[in-house]
């Protein structure tokens, strides 16, 4: 455990050195120095406007995640339990997952206009498909004996889903949620970049407009730290469920 922490420290130190070297190579006009950036990030954390933007992003991201997770799991459960429907939907879901959703931004903008609903919609279309695909495959891989038990006990589809399939498939569903929430955050931020007047994505686009390099890097660093923490938490939950569930 101790050596692991040391490795992490070494990685962080190495990354900072690399960053500093890049800064010297290309200049402050392209990449701000790591220390200046971190100082700026800490400064931002103490301003009111940063937190207003952060709350706006967090609200959209939260709502989008809840919708993507619930709808993705329900869709995945249904498709996983119905073999035929699952076979029909499988490549369609795969295609929807792989198309570059960013190309749909004009469509989303035209439907939802500027504002929080466009951001949420953008987050949902990014997150829902991986969650549905992971859930569907997880349910399909559940041992057939569970499914037969449910049949013998004449459980309704909803009870089967809630009491048997979800617990049995939980580790993989959590993996889907991990991938899905990361993409939901990406979608929400893209929505803010192109279609919004508030949020950290909007703060980024404004920093981009006036070429505030330190601000761009500081906000991105904070967002990355947030995304990595969420990811790590879900990873820990996934491992815990795998061993204790």
């Amino acid at each position, binding site marked *: 455990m101790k050596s692991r922490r040391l490795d992490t420290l070494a990685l962080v130190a190495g990354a900072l050195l690399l960053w500093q070297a890049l800064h010297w190579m290309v200049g402050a006009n392209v990449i701000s120095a790591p220390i200046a950036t971190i100082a700026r990030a800490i400064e931002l954390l103490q301003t009111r406007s940063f937190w207003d933007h952060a709350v706006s992003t967090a609200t959209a991201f939260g709502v989008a995640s809840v919708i993507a997770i619930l709808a993705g799991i329900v869709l995945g459960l249904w498709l996983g339990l119905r073999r035929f429907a699952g076979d029909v939907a499988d490549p369609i879901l795969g295609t929807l997952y792989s198309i570059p959703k960013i190309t749909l931004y004009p469509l989303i903008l035209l439907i939802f206009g500027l504002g929080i609903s466009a951001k949420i919609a953008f987050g949902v279309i990014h997150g829902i498909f991986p969650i549905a695909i992971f859930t569907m495959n997880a349910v399909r891989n559940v041992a057939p004996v569970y499914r037969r038990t449910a049949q013998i006990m004449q459980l309704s589809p909803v009870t089967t889903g809630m009491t048997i399939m979800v617990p049995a498939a939980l580790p993989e569903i959590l993996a889907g949620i991990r991938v899905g929430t990361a993409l939901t955050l990406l979608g929400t931020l893209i929505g803010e*970049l192109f279609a919004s007047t508030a949020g950290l994505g909007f703060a*980024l686009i404004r920093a981009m407009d006036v070429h505030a390099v330190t601000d761009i890097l500081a906000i991105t660093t904070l967002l*990355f730290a947030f*995304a990595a923490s969420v990811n*790590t938490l879900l990873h820990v939950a996934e491992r815990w469920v795998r061993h204790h569930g």
Partner: protein
Amino acid sequence: MTKVGVARLAFVVIVFSALELLCRLGIITRVTMIPPSEMVTSLWDIVESGRFNSDISFTFFNVVAAAVVAIGIGFLLGAGLHSLPRLRRPLEPLLSAYYAIPTFVFYPLLIVAFGVGRTALVVMGSMFGVVAMIVNTTLGLDHVPPAVERTGSVLKLDVLRQLILLRLPAAAPHLVTGVKLAVAYSIIGIVAGEFILATAGIGKRVSFAYDNFDNRTMYGLLLLLLVAVMLVNGALSAWERRLHRRFGQR
């Protein structure tokens, strides 16, 4: 055609017919979306008139260049990372959080570094694609069976030969997954860059049409982009499935 295939086709046809109907009835207004049939005719006009050919080839060659760079560098970094487990462990959560951040916020910085043009776009695309290749290369090398590695040492192959003759083929299914994702992400990076600022390219033409309320051209171009991505993705997925079957699902 199998029963599943028929049902799938029917589903797609129903969805598009419903969209067509909603558009024709005016429930979805023309300002929001044009009927799918008009998107197809608009796409046909674009292809036939050739008026966007230079933009299409601009984007196409940028994507090819970005994907090649992403795959090459991603493979080398992934192979390197695989041999350094102590570096890999703390790096893994960062790699899987990478796609939560819109990397194209760095695009303006790339423009300052390289100017508006191909280089900035290609760097943008490969920055977005490279991490998928790194992750899948390490995964692929994880899945090389110990028996294959032992065969290499029994045959006394040198390191390079072991890599090319044994490990690469054994890791191939995951490598192809990496290639598929690297291509997909390179496309996203480049199109996003073209949306933001570019002198040419499909993304540039889409945002230009959007700004000028030229929905017909915009949807034609979007359809072109989506069809192209689906074809590339479908071909790579078929290759991926074949490799997975040949090497067994591991």
